[in-house]
């Protein structure tokens, strides 16, 4: 790309200025903070939602099924199903 006088001026000005390191430090803190908030939301929001549902008289998704043992992972198998009888 052609380097016109605007680009030359911009390069000169960039060369003259040093970015203070405190900007990067502050930004690093912000990035960590945002990451933490994101993780907290990811972990706790579903729990808060469940609490809210429970407070309004609902039940947690899957509670009924679990109670009835409907989706019990081993509902179709007996403890010794795969054991060969002697």
């Amino acid at each position: 790309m052609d380097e016109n006088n605007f680009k030359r001026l911009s390069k000169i000005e960039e060369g003259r200025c040093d970015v203070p390191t405190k900007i990067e430090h502050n930004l690093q803190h912000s990035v960590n903070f945002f990451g933490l908030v994101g993780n907290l939301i990811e972990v706790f929001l579903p729990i808060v939602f469940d609490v809210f549902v429970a407070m309004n008289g609902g039940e947690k998704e899957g509670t009924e099924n679990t109670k009835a043992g409907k989706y019990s992972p081993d509902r179709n198998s007996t403890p010794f199903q795969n054991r060969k009888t002697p």
Partner: protein
Amino acid sequence: MELTTQKELTDTEVIHLFLKTRDSSFFSVLYHRYARKVFSKCISLLEDQTQAEDATQDIFSKIFLNLSKFSGQSKFSTWIYSITYNYCIDLIRKKKKSGVLFSDEMESVGEVADEVSDEELLTMEVERLKVVLDKMPLGDKSILLMKYNDDMSILEIAAVLDKSESAIKMKIMRAKEKARMIYKELYPEK
């Protein structure tokens, strides 16, 4: 991933990896690529070191929070510069509530006698160009920098300033005219 490998990646690859892994070292790569350019633009537009520092930090925070919205339709650099110009222009608008940012917003604006050619602008000596740009209203200066320094299209400039394409063409014409006028005042021998 090793630092040397990270440095060889394109902007789009770094963004993709950052969004996938949320590893802040990828964001750090983007910061080191563009911090100097963004900071330099902020100093040039805001003309204040402290404000430029705060602005640079805010701009990178915005970039971090909106990185997932970067569609890749334009170059990443163009996207970053759009955010930078937008931020600085907004900041100055808030500060100078009654101030004029563009010469075509002035009451005394007259008809443009003849359109200033790009060549006339692009043949100014660098030091003189700096003096001329520093004497221009901030909006005019920004619009010329977006067009001739950052190679932004009319459409991209229109998006930054939230104006129509025809309005931007008019603003560019006025800004060029203003630059020529200032140049002739300062350097009448030419």
